[in-house]
């Protein structure tokens, strides 16, 4: 969680410096992704939103690789095609992120169905923001998960905000998001997503249900989007500027640290040391990644790759278009 927080801070700074075009922080919500990453198995598949970078960090995915994606540079495995933070890391069980809200939630169910069809015990976990639960994909995910009893964890991250809209606009005023599951006959939990230990316990429970083929579980994670929606957003236009300071439910990092301190397993000094160590390694990674190029210095992925991966093989009309591009004066 600490690493995720500091990674976010650094990337925010990079965005401000023009090294990338856009950034999304997960401040305050780190426990959810990190808890999933550590509790799900190596062959399970996570269908994240753009606010689940904590998974990659917790799985010790090379930070330089993540940053190269952010900088769209020549080492970016996605060839500069995707907006920053839209990682894809199959080997880490991290599905390619879509800019379209909700779409991946039902795909997680399809993946889980496929695993079940194949007699495989791997499971899937989908993530959706409370705002995006209004999309069709949420309903489809629950319907298909219920009908086929798919081995999937359906996570609703209720961080209270969807850009400028409070959760009530998504229907959170008249019922909880956990309650949505009732109508489909899917067991559901509503969990304090800022309590790392609660996250671990709930994920384990749902994971075991899925692994034993007892079917899907929906978990509503109550948390709070402490930062702006993204670097394109100015929350002062729609919520009190200092609302975040009240940290509804408390900063998950502080809460875990003070729990450990109370138990005598951790100290403020250790926390400081950890943070300064992590800061150093984040800085080192950033330097290394910047060395491969950023949007600022223009060392971005080549344009030739534009035409690759539209299809498995480049069809004639795309070859003609690529030639046209390359022969431009």
């Amino acid at each position, binding site marked *: 969680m600490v690493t995720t927080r500091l990674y976010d801070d650094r990337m925010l700074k990079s965005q401000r410096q023009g090294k990338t075009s856009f950034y999304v922080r997960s401040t305050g919500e780190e426990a959810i992704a990190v808890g999933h990453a550590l509790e799900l198995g190596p062959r399970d598949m996570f269908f994240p939103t753009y606010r689940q970078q904590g998974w990659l960090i917790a799985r010790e995915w090379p930070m330089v690789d993540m940053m190269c994606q952010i900088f769209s540079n020549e080492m970016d495995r996605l060839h500069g*095609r995707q907006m920053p933070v839209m990682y894809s890391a*199959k080997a880490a069980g991290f599905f390619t992120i*879509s800019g379209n809200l909700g779409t991946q939630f039902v*795909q997680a169910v399809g993946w889980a169905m496929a695993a079940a069809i194949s007699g495989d015990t791997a499971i899937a976990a989908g993530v959706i923001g409370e705002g995006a639960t209004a999309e069709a*994909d949420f309903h489809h995910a629950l319907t298909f998960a219920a009908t086929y009893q798919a081995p999937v964890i359906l996570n609703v991250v209720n961080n209270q905000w969807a850009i400028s809209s409070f959760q009530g606009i998504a229907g959170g005023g008249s019922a909880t998001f956990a309650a949505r599951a009732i109508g489909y006959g899917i067991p559901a939990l509503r969990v304090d997503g800022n309590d790392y230990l609660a996250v671990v316990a709930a994920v384990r429970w749902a994971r075991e249900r899925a692994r034993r083929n007892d079917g899907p579980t929906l978990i509503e994670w109550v948390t709070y989007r402490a930062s702006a929606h993204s670097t394109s957003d100015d929350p002062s236009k729609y919520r009190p500027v200092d609302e975040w300071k009240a940290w509804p439910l408390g900063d998950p990092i502080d809460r875990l640290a003070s729990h450990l301190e109370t138990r005598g397993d951790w100290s403020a000094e250790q926390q400081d040391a950890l943070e300064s160590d992590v800061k150093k390694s984040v800085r080192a990674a950033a330097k290394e990644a910047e060395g491969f190029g950023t949007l600022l210095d223009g060392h971005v992925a080549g344009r030739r790759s534009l035409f690759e*991966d*539209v*299809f498995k093989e480049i069809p004639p*009309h795309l070859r003609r278009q690529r030639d046209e591009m390359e022969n431009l004066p």
Partner: protein
Amino acid sequence: MTAMTMNVAIRSALDNMLERDRQVVVFGEDVGFFGGVFRCTDGLQAKYGATRVFDTPIAEGGIIGVAVGMGAYGLRPVPEIQFADYVYPGLDQLISEAARLRYRSGAEFTAPLTVRMPSGGGIHGGQTHSQSPEALFTHVCGLKTVIPSTPYDAKGLLIAAVEDDDPVIFIEPKRLYNGPFDGHPDRPIVPWTDHPMGDVPDDYYTVPLGVASVRRYGADVTVLAYGTMVYVAEAAAAESGIDAEIIDLRTLLPLDTDAIVGSVEKTGRCVIVHEATRTSGYGAELAATVQELCFYHLEAPVQRVTGWDTPYPHAQEWDYFPGPARVGAALRTVMAE
């Protein structure tokens, strides 16, 4: 070889692929136990079990959505959309997801789906059982679009589509399920089982995607058609006595441009026929391409004969359907110039 109707040929393709490849799964509304409203999956659940051939909730968006997830896992899903008119709720998953998965993940994840759907009118289905939305798919980069016109091609192209690692939209002209339809509703159709093109091998074979087929050689004018319209073009050529070269495109994307250019350079004239509405239909792309590539060979403007820019009507469907009279008129027009 067995005499097969087009829906039986499609079922045979699915049967072969379910048998050969454990990754193939077939599903959709009424597809499992019942065998599909057009019977294209009849008997497959009994043969391969409800785990691989199954009914789904009525949610086209959900059907394509889970198919994308299954494809990412490593299966080869072959979902059915009951009528092409009902694909729209699934378009977001097709356009934003299936078509983009390979690109946005640097080929880490792919969506090797084949989405089957019956299209076209002529069955008194009115505006919600008659549409031909193929043009929409061809505008989406990352999707391939296929439309067969014979049982033989249907089977071979469907197998090729299922084996293809990209998402393929497989459009079945429902007016051809039982027999070739030439656009004369008052005349009996010859069932495929009595027709030479209804001879279909029982075993696995493929017809490659991206390759057109010349259905009639001719010197006067090139007709570009696909699906049901191939037979309408044949009827129009026969009735008008114009020596038309009729090309059945079979795959709309990727398009067999070479076949088109070769023919139009020879004939110097071109008529395009489809059942979909005219404006921004696939005929627009074809006409634009032909004039780009064959401009100096053209003796007359490329003509489009298409469905009108109105919804498909119920009672007046034969006024809507671009039948042999309209195609014949277009042939005469281009020949007159």
